[in-house]
């Protein structure tokens, strides 16, 4: 057989392999860049904030004097906020996902709702703040209380919860639902006894990730007029409150006035980041654990 094409001279192959290796290095550095920034950010924040971190700081009340200031109020505020956000997003989020994924007929309405949810997920959080300000704080006269903040943040993360829950439901092997249907189960019986139990870990993963988003949000709360300086602890969902990110915001802005505030902001950031890492970490763990099985 004639081989008219000297297609792969040794040197050419070597050159191509070299290019490949070089590119791999470049791509890997790009991927590591994120990790590097993460490390710098964490080192930077730890070195700034670690000295302010103490039990007193965690359990203390807010104060304008740096040496006395604590973040218990903000921590409690975050908890109360979750007391609103968790039930609302779970019920509405999973319910919507079940409807869209398992009940809704494929048609214009479903396509519209789906597109709508996709777009909601892309609306800047500050716009949700304006929605919350206009509806919850002003029109419904809640004022800047936990309920108003919680509902606003619920609306903000709902699209994320819905989409994640939909994906979880979709990832349940179809054959399981088929097996149940083929035994004469009604739709809801199949959902309740086969699909939801299988999808649950993955739904939780998505929900936790969305919740951690809610915990870290600042912009909508700024718009709602959530105060930074708030000394009494919130005791329920009708109380005024503040949260960790607001505290960071206030202290960062005023670090120009009181240098120690930068350390307080950093210390609060550590608390926020560690809680979020724990949350996200557990979500990622959940996902990895259960994705191997299916």
């Amino acid at each position, binding site marked *: 057989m004639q081989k008219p094409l000297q297609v792969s001279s040794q040197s050419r192959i070597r050159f191509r392999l070299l290019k490949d290796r070089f590119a791999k290095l470049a791509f890997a550095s790009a991927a590591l860049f994120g990790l590097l920034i993460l490390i710098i950010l964490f080192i930077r924040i730890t070195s700034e904030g670690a000295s302010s971190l103490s039990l007193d700081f965690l359990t203390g009340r807010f104060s304008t004097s740096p040496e006395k200031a604590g973040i218990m109020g903000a921590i409690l505020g975050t908890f109360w906020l979750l007391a609103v956000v968790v039930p609302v997003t779970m019920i509405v989020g999973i319910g919507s996902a079940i409807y869209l994924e398992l009940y809704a007929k494929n048609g214009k309405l479903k396509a519209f709702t789906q597109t709508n949810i996709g777009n909601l997920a892309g609306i800047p959080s500050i716009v949700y703040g304006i929605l919350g300000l206009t509806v919850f704080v002003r029109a419904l006269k809640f004022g800047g209380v936990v309920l108003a903040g919680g509902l606003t943040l619920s609306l903000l993360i709902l699209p994320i919860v819905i989409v994640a829950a939909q994906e979880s439901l979709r990832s349940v092997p179809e054959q399981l639902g088929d097996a149940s249907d083929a035994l004469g189960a009604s739709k809801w019986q199949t959902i309740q006894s086969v699909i939801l139990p299988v999808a649950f870990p993955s739904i939780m993963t998505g929900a936790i990730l969305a919740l951690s988003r809610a915990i870290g949000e600042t912009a909508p709360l700024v718009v709602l007029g959530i105060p930074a300086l708030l000394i009494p602890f919130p005791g329920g969902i009708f109380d*005024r409150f503040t949260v960790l990110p607001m505290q960071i915001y206030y202290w960062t802005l005023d670090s120009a006035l009181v240098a120690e505030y930068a350390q307080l902001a950093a210390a609060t950031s550590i608390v926020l980041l560690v809680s979020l890492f724990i949350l996200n970490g557990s979500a990622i763990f959940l996902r990895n654990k259960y994705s191997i099985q299916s």
Partner: protein
Amino acid sequence: QEKEESGTASANETSSLEGSVLVDGSGTVYPLMAKLAETYMIEEQEDVSVEVSRAGTSAGFKKFLVKDGTDFNDASRTIKEEETQTAKDEGIEVKELKLALDGLTFVVNKENDWVDELTPEQLIQIFTADGEVTQWSDLDPAWPKEEIKAMGPNENHGTYEFFYEKVLEEQDLKTSVNLQQDYSTLVSLVADDQYGIAFFGFGYYAGNQEKLQAVPVDFGEGPVEPSLETIAEDGDYAAFTRPVFTYLNVGHAKEKPQVLDYAKYILKNANKMAGETGFAPIPETESQENLNYLEELGNE
């Protein structure tokens, strides 16, 4: 031990209160008011929540002079004619409570080694278009040929209006003046810009002396540096001295005991905390007059 004290205190005067008190308004007054609120909540009434914001005097009045508005509005200027009119229209009775004295302070960067003093005329030149001054060398040929970075608080603020009315005599500011909402931003802008100059209340200079220099002002009798001594109604810095207030919604004070109680508290304690937040005290008699008024309000 502390608990016991506050317990007796509340048993003696009013019984322990709860509810919230909303304060907004002047950023200049904010440090003083925040300090007062904090000590009040810790030492006097643990269950009352006093929330202090700092939208600026003018912005604050807009939140104050509405139905269900804030309880207090801090102000670094007196209430304006049209604001009084709004209050009347809304049926809101307003009481002016004088708290302390502040001096409008001009600050420059630490590395600014050429400015020893400025006259009010020079300040006008710096901040208005008519002066045709854009570089430091335009004021004095020996100074650097660098653009002056002039900045100040924006129109939400009483300090802006005081400056506009009393110093500039209502000439428009240059469009290039960098107007900011937050005093903290101004502080860091000047602290980081060798050619910057800004103005705000003395308190923001007092708290940041390691980052800023105050510019002595020559009112005609030699340079005067702003300080707690020179800031007084008849002091050397009198020309740039102004009283600061908080305005009370009298209706709220009548309805909500915690608002009235807090009003009394600030009048009694403002002078004590003025110094550490960069304000000069006012005569006891002036506070006493207001206190009497409040006592009467309580007895109604």
